[in-house]
Structure formats: C-alpha cells, structure tokens
C-alpha cells in the first residue's frame, strides 16, 4: 500500500481554531470524529494526553506531533492541522522546554495492535519523513493542502533547498562510551 493511502484531504485543515493546545486538540478530535476516524472525541483526547504526559511532542520548526493509541480509533490516519494562532507546546528542541506551534501532525492510531499493524507501516514511513530538516522547514511554510501532501509524498532528493530554522550546532555531549 503506498503512502498516499494514509493521507486524506478531508482531515487536513488549514484553519484550526483555538488559542491553547487543549483547544486545538479538541478541535482536531472533532474533525476526526466527523470524518469517521474515531467514535469518541473525549476518549481520544484523553489518550493523546496520556502520551503527552510521557514526554514532549513539539519537534521544533513550529511543528508538533501529538499521538497516542486509543480504542476510540475506528480508522488509522493522520490529521494535519495548520493553526490560526501560535500554540504554546512542550518541546524537545528548545532550551526552555516550549515552542510556538503552527503545524500539527496528529497521529490517529488504534490501540488494537493487530488492527493497527498494516497502517503502522505507513504511519512509520510518514513519521520517518519528518526526520528530514529540509522537509520540515518547507512544511512549516506550506500554504495549501496540495503543497503539504506533495512535501510528504516526495522523495528526499526532490525536496530542493530550504533554510533550516533550527540548524544544529555540533557540540561535545556528555555521554559514556
């Protein structure tokens, strides 16, 4: 199954409303509910928060990747939301532990392991694509659903150039070897 099968324009929303993380998560859960991806927005949001409690899901470049496994999920997928307002979000990338998020990839994954497995291959492929800094920089500036989908679907060598927002400075880390 190709990656495009997991993307769905109906759950890409370029006008996600809300001023807080909670408001945007609830807004996005409702979009998933209305599109038949989940059967209970309350349960879904609660399960997302369970994962949030384990560590930050802000990944820099104004992008966040909340996710969780939930029995409320009827269909695995990924909701992509561009927020109207900057949303303060826990981040693994910044020194103060927070970032302003504009773009959200909300992974919608069934807690039923067998059921989830097929789609997990696609979702994991999609997640891997977010490990590319140029793609992430371009996604953070994308203005249309088509542009977002193209950036996800294209190969790394088709990405071209982009100014990476948070270029890593190479330093010595305190690690044991």
């Amino acid at each position, binding site marked *: 199954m190709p990656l495009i099968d997991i993307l769905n324009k109906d759950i890409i929303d370029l006008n996600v409303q809300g001023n807080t993380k909670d408001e945007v998560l609830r807004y996005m859960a409702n979009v998933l509910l209305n599109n038949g991806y989940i059967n209970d927005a309350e349960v879904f949001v609660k399960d997302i928060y369970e*994962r949030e409690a*384990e*560590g*930050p*899901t802000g*990944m820099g470049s104004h992008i966040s*990747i909340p*996710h*969780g*496994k939930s029995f409320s999920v009827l269909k695995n997928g990924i909701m992509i939301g561009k927020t109207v307002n900057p949303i303060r979000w826990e981040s*693994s*990338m910044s020194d103060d532990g927070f970032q302003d998020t504009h773009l959200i*990839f909300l*992974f919608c*994954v069934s807690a039923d*392991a067998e059921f*989830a*497995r097929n789609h*997990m*291959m696609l*979702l*994991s*492929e999609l*997640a*891997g*694509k*977010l*490990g*590319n*800094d140029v793609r992430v920089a371009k996604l953070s500036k994308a203005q249309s659903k088509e542009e977002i989908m193209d950036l996800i679907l294209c190969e790394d060598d088709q990405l071209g150039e982009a100014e990476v927002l948070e270029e*890593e*400075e*190479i*330093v*010595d*880390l305190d*690690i*044991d*070897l």
Partner: protein
Amino acid sequence: MKIVAVTACTAGIAHTYIVAEKLQKAAEELGHDIKVETQGSAGIENELTAEDIANADVVIYTHDIAIRGANRFAGKKIVDVPISTAMKQPKSLISTIEKKLAAK
C-alpha cells in the same frame, strides 16, 4: 566508522522513526556508515544482522523503553542515550562518539 543503532520510544509511533531518520542523515553527513533498527508499533524493522553487529565500531541505543534483543550486542561498545538526545542533537551525538572512540 561503522555504526549500528536501535531506536525505541514509548508509544512506538513517531519518535522511533523520526530519530532513525535523523541519525541516518547525521551519520551520512559526517561521513559514516550507519544502519538503524527501529523497534516500534510496526514491529522490528531494518533488523540488524549478526554480521552488521560484528562489523560495527559502536552501537547506539536511543530509547525511552527497554531495547529488545539487547543480548545481541554483548561485548560491543555501547552508547546509551534517551530519544530526546538524538532528536535534538543527532550530529553532536555522532561527532562526540567519533572523538571518544579516537581517544581510546
């Protein structure tokens, strides 16, 4: 240097795979060979073979939950870091390992 790595995050949905890609890119950019095994919700992918492990100069564990099959790496030089380190500073991680190996 030749690197093998294993990634595993708590939910096994996103960070496992993002970090695998970041390590791959960082190692290539710094001129090293790398193979990254992901242990996530999709199962174990890109599994390291006995030969991969035997040929590796160093093993990187980047994880928030226990690594499956850790006995495969007995006797190897292992660097053990949380997912967040490889998420934030993949190049620094690899360049620090390179320096430390050279100093041994």
